[in-house]
C-alpha cells in the first residue's frame, strides 16, 4: 500500500487573523469572482496553499471558509477565485457584495500537503474552480522561467465557464472541455486517459483538485495509467 508519511511535507506557516483590504474585484466566469487582496503582514505562501476568509456581521456573528490562492508567491497581492454556491453563506457575499476597498479578515496560508516545491516535475489536474491552486503553481513556474516543470490540465465545460481558461491555454498546458472543441482542436469530451497519457513521462508528483466526484475520477485515471498512489496529492472541495 502507499506511504503518505514517506512523502516530503512542509510545516504550514500560520498565524492569527488579520484585517486585509480587497483591492481589485473582477469576474472570472459568470459564477466566480476574482478578488485581489492586500495583506499587510504577509507570510509567503507555497503554490497550492489556501487561506481562511472570515466575515463578521454588525452584531458580531462570524462565518469563515477556506479558499485556494491563485496568485504566485511573487505577486504583490493575494489572489483568490471564489465560486458562488447557492445558499453559500460566505461565497454569496464574496461574489455578490464585496467591492474594492472592503475589509475582511484572513488567516494563513494553511496546508502543507497540497503544495508544489517549484522544482519537482509535476502534472496538475484541476476540474472547474479546482484549477485555482494549480494556477498559482503555473504562474510561479512561469515567473521563474521553469514552465517545463509543470503541466496543468484544466477540465471544464466551456472556455467561458472554466476560470483562467485563457491563461491555462498558453504554453504546454491542456484544456479538456466537455461541451466545446478546445482552442487546440481537442473534441468536446470529458477528461480521459488520452488527455493525460502524453504528459506522464518524467513527472514525479501529481496534483488533483476539484469536487469530490472529479477528484475521484481524475485520481483513478492516474492510477489506471500506472501512477503510484503515493505520488498523487489530492485536494477535494467540500460544499461551501
Amino acid at each position, binding site marked *: *500500500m*502507499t*506511504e*503518505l*508519511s*514517506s512523502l516530503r*511535507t*512542509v*510545516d*504550514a*506557516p*500560520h498565524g492569527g487573523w488579520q*484585517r486585509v483590504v480587497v483591492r481589485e474585484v473582477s469576474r472570472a466566469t459568470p459564477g466566480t469572482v476574482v478578488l485581489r487582496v492586500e495583506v499587510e503582514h504577509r507570510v509567503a505562501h507555497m503554490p497550492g496553499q489556501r487561506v481562511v476568509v472570515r*466575515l*463578521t*456581521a*454588525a452584531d*458580531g*456573528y*462570524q*462565518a*469563515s*471558509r*477556506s479558499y485556494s490562492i491563485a496568485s504566485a508567491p511573487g505577486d504583490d497581492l493575494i489572489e483568490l477565485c471564489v465560486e458562488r454556491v447557492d445558499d453559500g*453563506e460566505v461565497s454569496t*457575499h464574496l461574489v455578490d*457584495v464585496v*467591492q474594492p476597498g*472592503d*475589509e*475582511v*479578515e484572513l488567516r494563513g496560508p*494553511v*496546508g*502543507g*500537503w*497540497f503544495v508544489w516545491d517549484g522544482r519537482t516535475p509535476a502534472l496538475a489536474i484541476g476540474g472547474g474552480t479546482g484549477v485555482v491552486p494549480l494556477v498559482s503553481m503555473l504562474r510561479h513556474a512561469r515567473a521563474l522561467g521553469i514552465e517545463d516543470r509543470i503541466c496543468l490540465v484544466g477540465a471544464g465545460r466551456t472556455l467561458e465557464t472554466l476560470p483562467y481558461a485563457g491563461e491555462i491555454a498558453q504554453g504546454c498546458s491542456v484544456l479538456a472541455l466537455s461541451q466545446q472543441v478546445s482552442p487546440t482542436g481537442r473534441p468536446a469530451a470529458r477528461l480521459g486517459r488520452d488527455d493525460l497519457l502524453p504528459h506522464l513521462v518524467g513527472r514525479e508528483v501529481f496534483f488533483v483538485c476539484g469536487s*469530490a466526484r472529479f477528484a*475521484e475520477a481524475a*485520481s*483513478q485515471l*492516474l*492510477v489506471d495509467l500506472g501512477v503510484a*498512489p*503515493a505520488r*498523487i*496529492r*489530492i*485536494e*477535494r*472541495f*467540500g*460544499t*461551501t
Partner: protein
Amino acid sequence: MVVTRGFQGRRGGRPGRLPPGQYDIGDDWPVLSAEVTPNVRLDRWSLGVDGLVARPQSWTWDQLQALPRSEYRGDIHCVTTWSKFDTRFGGVSLDVLLDAVEPAPEAAFVVARSVTGYTTNIPLGDLVDGQAWVVWLYDGLPLTGHHGGPVRLLVPHLYFWKSAKWLERLTFLAEDAPGFWEVNGYHDRGDPWLEQRYQGD
C-alpha cells in the same frame, strides 16, 4: 472587531449544538481526504492494536463482526467549518478493544494509521469511556469507500480528521507523535468546542 460591510450571515438554528465557527451543512457530507481512495480487500485486511499494551492483538473483519455492537448517534464537526447533525454510525466501542489489549500505565497517546499511510495522533484520554468507536456502518448501511469504508475510526467529539479513514492500526505511545495533518499545521488535539484548528490555537 472588523465588521464586514453588508454581511448579514445565516446563523444556524440550533443554539448549543454548533461549536464556534461551525455551520450546519444539512444533508450533505463532503469528502476531503488528501489521497487516492484505496480499494481495501477485506479478506486481506485486519485491524492491529499494538505499542504500549500488555497484549498486542489484531482483528480480522470476521472477528470484528463478532464483537458486541455499539452505535453512535450524534453530531460530527469538520475543521473546514461544516458540522453534520444527527449522524448514526455502527461498529464497536473502542473500549472493547482497549479491554482486550490492556494499555500500559505509561501509554498516553495513540496514533491511528490508515492503509494509505495517513496517520493522526489522539490523546488516550479522548478514546476511552464511550468516546470513540471503530465503525463500518452509516445509517445502517456499509460505510462507503470515500467516507472511509470498510472500517474507520470515529472520535466524534474531536474534529473529524482525527476519525481516520480506512483504519488498519492503532499504536499506543508514551509521547505524542504528530500525524499527517498535525505535521502540516493542524492541532494535536482538535477539540471543536475550544476551536483547536491549527497548531497554536
